């Protein structure tokens, strides 16, 4: 007992030395100030499917989920030859899409213009699309993060590293994003004993709920989509023209033994976007230590108001080219002894129609959305 107490004292001391201090979620936070700003998310890329301009208003509450779209705006980009390409508002309010066939070209320069229905005008800096180097090599290693105990989903996983050759020119900036598609069998789960309402496309809520949980199978192919939560950027300021080896770009969880579909995108971004991402990283990603830099938001970085120069604008005009690589990680191999996958069990029962039930449906459609699709992912061969 005494030894245990002594050890715990020592351990506390050591942990304190390392400034592995305690972090507690705050549940009673009261916002001091509430302000809304115009947000512009504008992407001009070498992939025609990803070019878009989205204009919204920021929410003035941290708990809010509502970002009011700015509709009926005039939006166009002008290239270095003076050619204007108008973006039209699509089916999603506040999102403006280019005419089909439009695609950004490496080496070309673009400037964004926006005029809202209220007459406010905005103009971006001229940004040039930089060439992106190809992803030369991608490897994954099973690594244990042993600050987490066995059973913690963060403990075991595959670290994904890549190699590429930096462009010879100075001042190149890179960003990596990844997407994972997980094929699913269950498309809806209803709690409280309620069943899926195929008219409302939602679960029925019983007047007197019970503990029954019903899972409904998908009526066809369906994939859940997940992606990186953290921003990952890099500057070649210290490695210009070198082959960059072993840059970690992702961490794949050990939540199953099957093949893991992994799509990596490597972007060549502009300096403005690099700076913009750096400010987000220091404000919400690398913070929480004793050495934080002041949390700040970069306003009006490369988009400024023509009508009101003091107006603060959120967002960035992002001109980039991208290279993609699809990669499958075999999660059944190279696992150290004693490490097990953290598989979430299916809670509840799979719903099946009672025998002889007329008009009963038991399979739910796969609804398209940001986190789900029925379109077979590119390169899917499983």
């Amino acid at each position, binding site marked *: 007992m005494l030894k245990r107490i002594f050890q715990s004292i020592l351990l506390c001391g050591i942990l304190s030395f390392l400034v592995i201090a305690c972090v507690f979620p*705050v549940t009673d936070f009261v916002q001091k100030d509430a302000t809304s700003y115009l947000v512009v998310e504008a992407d001009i890329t070498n992939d025609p499917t990803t070019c878009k301009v989205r204009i919204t208003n*920021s929410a003035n509450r941290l708990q809010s989920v509502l970002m009011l779209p700015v509709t009926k705006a005039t939006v166009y980009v002008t290239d270095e030859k003076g050619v204007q390409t108008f973006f039209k508002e699509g089916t999603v309010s506040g999102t403006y899409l280019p005419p089909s066939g439009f695609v950004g070209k490496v080496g070309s320069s673009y400037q964004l213009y926006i005029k809202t229905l209220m007459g406010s005008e905005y103009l971006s800096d001229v940004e040039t699309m930089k060439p992106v180097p190809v992803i030369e090599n991608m490897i994954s290693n099973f690594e244990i993060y042993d600050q987490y105990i066995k059973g913690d989903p963060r403990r075991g996983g595959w670290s994904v590293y890549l190699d590429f050759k930096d462009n010879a020119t100075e001042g190149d900036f890179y960003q990596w994003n990844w997407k994972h598609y997980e094929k699913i069998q269950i498309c809806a789960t209803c709690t409280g004993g309620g069943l899926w309402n195929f008219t409302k496309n939602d679960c029925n809520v019983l007047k007197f709920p019970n503990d029954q949980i019903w899972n409904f199978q998908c009526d066809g192919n369906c994939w859940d989509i997940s992606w990186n939560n953290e921003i990952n950027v890099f500057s070649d300021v210290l490695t210009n023209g070198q082959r960059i080896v072993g840059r970690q770009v992702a961490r794949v969880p050990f939540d199953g033994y099957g093949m893991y579909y992994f799509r990596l995108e490597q972007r060549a971004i502009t300096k403005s976007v690099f700076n913009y991402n750096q400010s987000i990283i220091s404000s*919400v990603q690398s913070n929480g230590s*004793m050495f934080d830099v002041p949390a700040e938001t970069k306003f009006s970085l490369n988009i400024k108001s023509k009508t009101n120069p003091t107006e603060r604008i959120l967002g960035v005009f992002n001109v980039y080219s991208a290279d993609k690589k699809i990669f499958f990680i075999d999660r059944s191999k190279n696992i150290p002894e004693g490490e097990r996958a953290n598989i979430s069990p299916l809670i509840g029962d799979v719903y099946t129609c009672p025998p002889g039930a007329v008009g009963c449906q038991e399979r739910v459609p796969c609804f398209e959305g940001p986190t789900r699709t029925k379109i077979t992912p590119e390169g899917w061969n499983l």
Partner: protein
Amino acid sequence: MAQFFTKGKILFFLLIVLAFSAFSQTTTLPAVYGRVIDAQTGEPLKGAVIALDFKKSGTKTDSLGNYKIHLPYGEYVIKISHVGYNSFRSRVLLKKDELLNVELNDVTKQLEEVIVSSSSTKKDIQTPSLGVTILSLKGIKKLPTMMGEVDVIRSLQTLPGVSSVGEGSNGLNIRGSNVDQNLIYIDDTPIFNPTHMFGLFSVFASDAIRDLELYKGGVPARFGGRSAAVLDIKMIEPNTDHFKMQGGIGLVSNRVMAEIPVIKEKLSVLVAARGSFNDFLFKMVAPDNLKNIRANFMDIATKIYYRPNNKNTISFSNYFSYDYYRVDSLFSLENVVAKRTNFDYGHQNFAVHWNHYFSPKLSMMLSGTTTFYNTKTYAPDTVNTINLLSSIKYNNIHASFDYIPNDKHKLNFGVSGTSYKIMPGRLNEGVASRVSTVIIPDEQSFEAGIYADEEFKVSEKFTFQAGLRYSQYWQIGAGTVNEYASNQMPSLGTITRKINYAPGEVMASYGGFEPRLTMKYSIGKDATVKFGYNRMQQFFQLLSNNTTPLPTSRWKTASAYIKPQKSDFVSLGLFKTFNENVYETSLETYYRDVQNTLDFVSGANLQLNPNIETQLVTGKGKAYGFELMLQKKKGEMTGWISYTYARAFSQMVGDFPEVQSINGGNWFPTNYDKPHTFNAMINMTPTPHHSFSFTFAYNTGRPFSSPSGLYEIGGKRYPVFSERNNDRIRDYHRLDFSWTISNPSMKHVRWEGSWVFTVYNLYGRKNPYSLFFKSTKYGIQPYELSVFASPFVSLTYNFKFL
């Protein structure tokens, strides 16, 4: 109080009995006797107090400095003290008559050596000094410690007007100053990074410290080079008579100190060392992921003290500190692929002092000091090796004279010259790696100062101390200065010309007078009103935009684009003692105005940037407040309570406000703006073998930037920060306790051990250090970071060999 008088009466009765007993037995009892003289002049000291075994009273010397006390056989601790002199303490084993002649050092020759101990010197009442706090190490050792480490920086934070950004942060904020605005000296050599373990422990080995003076205001003219406060730490002058050793074994570190006389009464050596040995603890009890971590520090202080005669003393002191860490992915360089980073930093300080006493009226001090502070960040990866070095080299020579023509005048004057050589950063110099070699050019500069300080006792009631310092600064080539387009913000794209300077050529120069004034007016015997004014300049600044500076943060001397900081400080104080100096109260109020402070443009890149002026925003600061303190200085129970109201603000707006401004150019509270602070310290010594201490600290939470909403980009949500420091974290409060058992065997032997049991954060409050926000899938989640979120118990064993 009633108990106090009761005890006083009992003591008085015992003394009467003792005196009667001594009188009646003079023929049989042995005596300790001798003469007490001034060490410098040889003059006998009348009225020196001879106290025995820690008692409050004893006998006094006569007009020839002689004393004699008859005592029963036994061992006694004898203390001989005189107002204005350093006290003398010794053990005496009385078997027969013992001769004990003592030379006391006159503290007026070294004003900063006055020690406020449990017997008040009435300094606050009798001298014009204002905003000056003197702490004895004995006093500091009474305070409860964190992890058993006696810590100067933490102890100072119990005083009014002294704070830090938070628990475990690096440096001190004194009356609204930034950490780099305070000059920290150890034996006149500057300390650029005062903490080990990134801020957890002071770098000063407590055993080697004699005392320390903190000048929060009223900085004498002999100090220059910083715009706010001065912390002047003096190392022990080793005993020339007999060997002494002391040390301790603690949870964090082990330490030992020895005073070794080489030539009796002439030459002695001090060696004090402290080292942390945590690696084996990591292997024993840390989880697997921490087993690879290395985190160690050490410091060594040595001093050679030579007194060839009564008119000369020469000392050579050295201070060395070293920190080493090996951690995964912490403090790595941005934009470099490296998994594990090693990191070390430390000081190497040397000082030579020669004190010469021409006459009782005139004395001189000559010193030559040097400090070398260096940091190294390295990752010995095979292809992505990094090796980043930075350093500061400081050299100083200083001549100071004290002239005391009569009782009314005291004059201190002198000259000093300082050279700075900064190596801001050398990455991979001569190292084969895929990571580039980047060398930021070295910077050289020179600072000269001439000063005089006169203390004039106009009357019994009115004394003033007026000083004037002139500081001149030159930035010296070789170097390059960029010239930028006149109507555009300085950036790489707006450089119009590069001006090259040859070695030795002046690249920029600044200078100015720094008047210093303090005045004292006595109201009656026990109260004074004081006024102070300072102007101070600072040519050497720390560039850091972190909450608390990293040891690798870059220092920068003034240049064509970075003007020296200039601070004007006024203060007013009221001091009163009660009950024959048992109680002392003070009220001090101040206002400080600072010009040319630095902050940084949004997303500033400070590391390895050769054009640092493109990242800076110049502004100004102001701080004001008042400090109220009540001390009980004598008795079994001593301590203090204090309340401080303090504010500190910055205003940052450059020539191009759209980019070079913070908070739209409006005033905003600094990271260390904590309006209300309450501190209390109580020490109880019921017996010579036991003492108990409590400290309590409360302060308003420090500011942080609170978001005004959220926005969504790329499917992810981020908080919107519209203003800096527009909200405050929760208030801070903490109670600490310590119990010291001195010499538990109660035997009077040369080896004396003691145990210190400490509980830090007794009631385990989760005090926040910061409040920060993370983006989650579901929105924005606020979190609090707490450094010591539970009670922390420690036990330390200390020993003395006298």
